[in-house]
């Protein structure tokens, strides 16, 4: 019977092409607008590392004295001091942990083929790649020994390797960063990361860095942060060594905690670390305070998806509702005009339920066609968004979930809009129309 209803729906579409096309257009515009904003929202709020997001925790410590406040919800600074990051990195637990900082260099080769250019870099520890599931096209991460000895080694992105070495393996080759040469030990495979969740302090939607170097080089080369660096009290920092020992926060720190037990144990360790630091005159608050947030909690804590985005999605759904209100009016007119035919069908044995279903199938079909057209309009909308802002390049796209959601939303909202007209036409008294036709 469903196929028969579809056949009747298609005939109805052809019988009133203008009204049907208007309804499809209204749905398509509503879906186009809604899917544009919803797709961006979906990509922004999507779990960037779903299979592991609940095992990766960012570490925050309450270093400030009593009475000082931070702009976070719980008053805890989002980054760590260098000395805390170094201490926690050298701690016995957990097995995998990573300290990091954003910086940048002037990049060039020992040839005149490539003009020097400025590139973002991430100073990090070697577990970064395995913790955040980054794979390599060539080579791999630097060793722990190279980390300890601040070896001049570098891992470069695929894009940078394509630019500098035409995509060939560059393992063992030298590149120049500022005034020093570094040996390439690894080239990353494609890493299409929409959201740079591992460092939300420096632009959540910025491009992933092209250079990755040992964290220990910060101290060795006195590298400054290209990211946020915050203080909460006056300190007389005259040189780099002072800065490393200061209470300024500028290092991000992550720990991989695979089980609840590991998380509990690490929490206890952080408490004991704070207690130990207290003896040295730091962490003066009476109650030690720390925070471990997993990837999704970290994204929420940092308001990655801003209220504006949520309001925009809400508004686009309201726009869809307006489109549906128009469709409801058109459906009412169309269905009630067909009441005489419904009267005949009822006389010939159609139950109210069958008539109701027939009309719902028709609105579902309109929704499906409108949904498909809406996807095309959404693609145009997303193209416009991508061209407006660079950092939306990866975000303003429709993934498979959104592609499948569009017709589902279109069909279900159309069915909601069609419920009343379908109900009205199915409960009309057939006897009235049979005589008057």
């Amino acid at each position, binding site marked *: 019977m469903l196929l028969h209803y579809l056949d009747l729906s298609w005939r109805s579409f052809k019988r009133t092409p203008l009204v049907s096309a208007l309804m499809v257009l209204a749905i398509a515009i509503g879906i186009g607008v809604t899917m544009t904003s919803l797709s961006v929202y979906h990509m922004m709020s999507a779990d960037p590392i779903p299979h592991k997001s609940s095992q990766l925790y960012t570490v925050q410590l309450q270093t400030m004295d009593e009475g000082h406040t931070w702009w976070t919800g719980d008053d805890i600074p989002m980054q760590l001091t260098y000395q805390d990051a170094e201490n926690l990195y050298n701690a016995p637990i957990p097995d995998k942990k990573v300290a990091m900082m954003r910086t940048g260099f002037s990049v060039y080769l020992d040839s005149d083929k490539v003009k020097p250019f400025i590139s973002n870099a991430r100073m990090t520890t070697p577990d970064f790649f395995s913790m955040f599931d980054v794979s390599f096209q060539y080579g791999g991460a630097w060793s722990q020994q190279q980390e300890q000895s601040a070896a001049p080694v570098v891992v470069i992105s695929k894009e940078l390797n394509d630019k500098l070495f035409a995509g060939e393996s560059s393992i063992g080759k030298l590149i120049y960063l500022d005034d020093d040469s570094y040996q390439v030990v690894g080239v990353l495979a494609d890493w299409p990361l929409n959201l740079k969740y591992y460092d939300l302090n420096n632009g959540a939607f910025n491009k992933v860095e092209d250079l990755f170097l040992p964290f220990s080089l910060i101290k060795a080369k006195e590298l400054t942060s290209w990211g946020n660096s915050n203080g909460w009290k006056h300190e007389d920092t005259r040189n780099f060594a002072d800065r490393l020992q200061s209470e300024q926060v500028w290092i991000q720190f992550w720990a991989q905690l695979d089980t609840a037990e590991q998380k509990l144990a690490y929490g206890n360790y952080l408490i004991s670390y704070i207690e130990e630091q207290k003896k040295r005159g730091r962490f003066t608050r009476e109650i030690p305070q720390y925070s471990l947030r997993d990837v999704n909690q970290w994204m929420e804590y940092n308001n990655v998806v801003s209220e504006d985005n949520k309001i925009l999605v809400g508004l686009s759904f309201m726009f869809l509702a307006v489109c549906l209100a128009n469709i409801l009016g058109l459906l009412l007119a169309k269905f009630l005009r067909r009441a005489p*035919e419904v009267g005949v069908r009822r006389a*010939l044995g159609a*139950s109210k339920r069958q008539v109701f279903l027939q009309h719902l199938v028709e609105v579902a079909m309109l929704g499906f066609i409108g949904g498909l057209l809406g996807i095309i309009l959404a693609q145009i909308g997303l193209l416009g968004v991508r061209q407006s802002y660079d950092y939306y390049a990866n975000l303003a796209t429709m993934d498979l979930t959104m592609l499948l959601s569009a017709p589902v939303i279109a069909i279900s909202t159309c069915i909601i809009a069609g419920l009343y007209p379908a109900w009205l036409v199915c409960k009309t008294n057939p006897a009235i129309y*049979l005589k008057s*036709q």
Partner: protein
Amino acid sequence: MLKMNNISKIYQTEMVQTHALRDFTLQVDEGEFIAVTGPSGSGKTTFLNIAGMLEPFSEGEYLLDGIDVGKLNDNQRADVRNQKIGFIFQGFNLIPDLNLYENIEVPLRYRGIKASERKRRIEQCLEQVGLASRAKHLPQQLSGGQQQRVAIARALAGEPRFLLADEPTGNLDSLMARQVMELLEQINRDGATIVMVTHDPELARRAPRNIQVVDGQLADFTLYQGAQTIKSAAGA
């Protein structure tokens, strides 16, 4: 076949209460051919709509083939209507977008009959009404008489035991009306029970039993049995 006891139908508006039928009692036996006559507004069509379960009645009891219609819900009424009753309307009421084959197919689809069986019945009915070669034509490509024959074919396709005809020849010229009437008589001879509402006294006289409805009540009936005519007051 059909038994109505003290059926009343009241149309209620805010200002007026209209009794379309009052204490209407009638029994129709299997295989009968009854013509229902009466002035306009007397309640003939209301009677037919109630008989066809297209309208509920306000009071009384209605048994169709032993089934108490008053106790059926909408789905059950639709099923009974689909399986036991065939309708023929004055305005033919064919669906303009569907060709003849598809029009006749409508009641069969609602009954859930398989495609092969539907095809057999439709071809047989079209043959019976002499329109087998027009199966793919749309209703508007046919004359009024032909359209009414299609409507009869549609009513017959479900093999109903009870045919309700509301002015079946009202929109036809005399020649076509005669042809349609002959077709109905043939269907009656084949075993179907027919109740036909008509204004045409000539046509009514061809039915073996006439009943007259006046002011929503059964006024009298006449039996035509060959040359003998028996006329009596209702209930006599």
